């Protein structure tokens, strides 16, 4: 009996100590631990297939161009009166909040048109810089747009109608966060709250690293 107690007591103490240490480790602010965010952070970053689109300057664009900085990607179209301009507004607010906080570099923002029949590069050149001159719009072939959207888990249903007609394009409303390695790192699902997104963006960038370098390699 005595010997059991001799073993049990230290064992219980050890358990409590381990639990305490775990709590301390989980709640400490050390970098390298999974941040608590509303975003869907991927354990395995997802690759983006090679494809070619046109940016709003009329220059060829491929996912290769996403490398080197953090980018928020979202899908929309310019014949959309409410949710698309509002998402542009929210991206601008996120961009500004991150810039004002000064903890990490603000994200690049990429607007992908899901209505390539009507959204020419010229049209995007008018639309996108109205919100922010640093944002980039891309458009191109329907198949390429759908492929890019699919790789980002964004459903797109482009209706088979005459571009001269009045139509809507239903599209996924989540935002995709692409890392400086050119891979998909996280998603933000709608409805979007700019202050939440900016906080989560900062947490993710600090966790994975501004350049997604050494720290991320260790994590993997």
């Amino acid at each position, binding site marked *: 009996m005595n010997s059991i107690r001799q073993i049990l007591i230290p064992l219980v103490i050890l358990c409590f100590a381990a639990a305490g240490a775990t709590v301390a480790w989980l709640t400490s602010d050390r970098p390298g631990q999974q941040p608590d965010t509303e975003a869907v952070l991927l354990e395995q970053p997802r690759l983006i297939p090679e494809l070619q689109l046109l940016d709003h300057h009329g220059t060829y664009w491929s996912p290769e161009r996403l490398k080197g900085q953090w980018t928020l990607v979202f899908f929309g179209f310019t014949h959309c*009166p409410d*949710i698309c*301009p509002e998402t542009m507004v929210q*991206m601008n607010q996120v961009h500004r909040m991150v810039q004002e906080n000064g903890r990490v570099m603000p994200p690049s923002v990429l607007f992908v048109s899901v209505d390539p029949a009507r959204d020419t590069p010229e049209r995007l050149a008018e639309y996108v810089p109205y919100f922010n001159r640093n944002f980039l719009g891309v458009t191109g072939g329907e198949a390429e747009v759908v492929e890019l959207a699919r790789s980002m888990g964004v459903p797109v249903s482009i209706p088979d109608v005459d571009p001269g007609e009045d139509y809507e394009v*239903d599209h996924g*409303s989540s935002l995709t966060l692409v890392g400086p390695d050119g891979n998909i790192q996280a998603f933000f699902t709608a409805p979007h709250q700019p202050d939440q997104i900016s906080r989560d963006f900062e947490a993710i960038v600090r966790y994975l690293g501004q350049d997604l370098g050494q720290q991320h390699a260790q994590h993997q």
Partner: protein
Amino acid sequence: MRTLFLALGLLTLSLAVQAAPPVTAESPWVREAPPGSSVTAAYLDLVNQGDETITLVNVRSEEFRRAEIHETIHEDGQAKMRAVDEIAVPAEGRVELKPGGKHLMLHEPREELSVGDWAHLVLEFDNGQLLELAVPVKRRTGRDDDDDHHDHHEHRGHH
């Protein structure tokens, strides 16, 4: 004498209350269409001061060829915009038409409208009431030089 004035005052007040339309609009604004876009939206709060539900059934605007009651819905991770037939405003209730939700879609402006301009809306309700509104066009880009940062702030004048 004083009682008479008071009585007259109360009478005027009660007449004014009776004359007030049951549905009013608060903080109406039209989103300046981004360049290259031929569609935009109007937003406002509908306030029903009556004791019966009143339903918005139609909207028109002299500045636009077509106007519709719309709603953006989030369904299965998708943003979908749908025309709706009507918006019911419950008795003594309020319905907000705001970005990302219910709104009045405005198609094909007859002339380009920009910040500082006004659009005229006529809202028609199922009780026959017509609400005529002059609505300011506001620029909303999310930049800090927007003329109005929040939907429900009072309009701060024009540039």
